[in-house]
């Protein structure tokens, strides 16, 4: 099985590659310190198995899975046993390894991966409320000042923990708010939530690859569940 390793910790990547080297049927093609690099790689390459860390900054393992249209088998590797239930909502996840991983436990996971047929991922569908408002201005509270932002100039909104980053043609604003709140204020003819952490201005798209869009210089992941809506909104030839 051709596999890749995604983990922001170099020590973890090295350990997983070592564990793989003791299993003749495994061939580690690449290692990635973040999910975005792996997404770009998977746009061009096919793999049979992914070793995926859940807990990564900015972009979790679950965020990553959401971007995959037809995910290969995935083995989660984590220091946190609390995500096990969520993990098994995904058909593509064949096992869940808690670090530090022993060779014996690793081999068991590989046995499961080999036994499992590759199926597309299924997950309980979620409903997302998209509301629009009229008007071209949005006021955001920054350092106790209300700053006016021209809505059409916004090209990207990114969730960052308790904050959102609003990127416009001229300036970026970090605002203490949620993606859900701003989503309700943005007109739905211009804006679309393409991922649980991103809302994009569809007029600002430069190009679209399989599971990502390029806006300005930002490559933004598109969740599998949001992709049909995105494609519907484009003027396709």
């Amino acid at each position: 099985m051709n596999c890749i390793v995604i983990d922001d910790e170099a020590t973890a990547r090295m350990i997983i590659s070592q564990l793989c080297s003791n299993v003749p049927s495994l061939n580690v093609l690449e290692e990635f310190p973040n999910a975005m690099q792996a997404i770009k790689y998977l746009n061009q390459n096919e793999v049979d198995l992914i070793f995926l860390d859940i807990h990564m900054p900015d972009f979790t393992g679950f965020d990553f899975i959401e971007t995959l249209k037809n995910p290969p088998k995935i083995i989660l590797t984590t220091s946190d046993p609390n995500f096990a239930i969520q993990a098994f909502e995904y058909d593509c996840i064949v096992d869940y390894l808690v670090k530090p991983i022993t060779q014996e436990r690793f081999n068991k996971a590989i046995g499961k991966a080999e036994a499992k047929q590759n199926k597309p991922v299924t997950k309980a569908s979620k409903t997302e409320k998209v509301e629009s408002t009229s008007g071209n201005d949005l006021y955001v509270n920054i350092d106790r000042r209300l700053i006016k932002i021209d809505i059409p100039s916004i090209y990207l909104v990114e969730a960052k923990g308790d904050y959102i980053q609003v990127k416009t043609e001229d300036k970026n604003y970090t605002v203490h708010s949620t993606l859900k709140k701003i989503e309700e204020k943005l007109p739905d003819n211009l804006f679309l939530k393409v991922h649980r952490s991103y809302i994009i201005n569809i007029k600002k798209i430069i190009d679209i690859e399989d599971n990502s869009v390029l806006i300005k210089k930002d490559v933004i992941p598109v969740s599998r569940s949001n992709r049909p809506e995105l494609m519907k909104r484009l003027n396709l030839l």
Partner: protein
Amino acid sequence: MEQPNQSYINSLSGGDQAFKQKLIDVIKKEFPEEKLVYFNNYNAKNYKLAAENVHKLKHKISILGLEKGYEVAVAYENSLLEGSTNHKEAFEAILNSITIYLEEI
């Protein structure tokens, strides 16, 4: 107090000395960086971010065979997520013990 050890690393390396040394070198490089980020976030009272740093440091603690230390880290991570600093001293004592150990090996 529980001391760091190489049981897991030895078992993983299966006698491959080159791999073992390379792994130790990576840990020696990553650990101080992760520790620094943790202290920066803690001192800035960014407890949520500090909890993420503790989460990452937990792996190094477990690799170095500190089973009780791992439990302390889990408890401390949970405390930080709740905005509390319970277990801070115990956790930082573990960091200190790893720092000394990595300087010696």
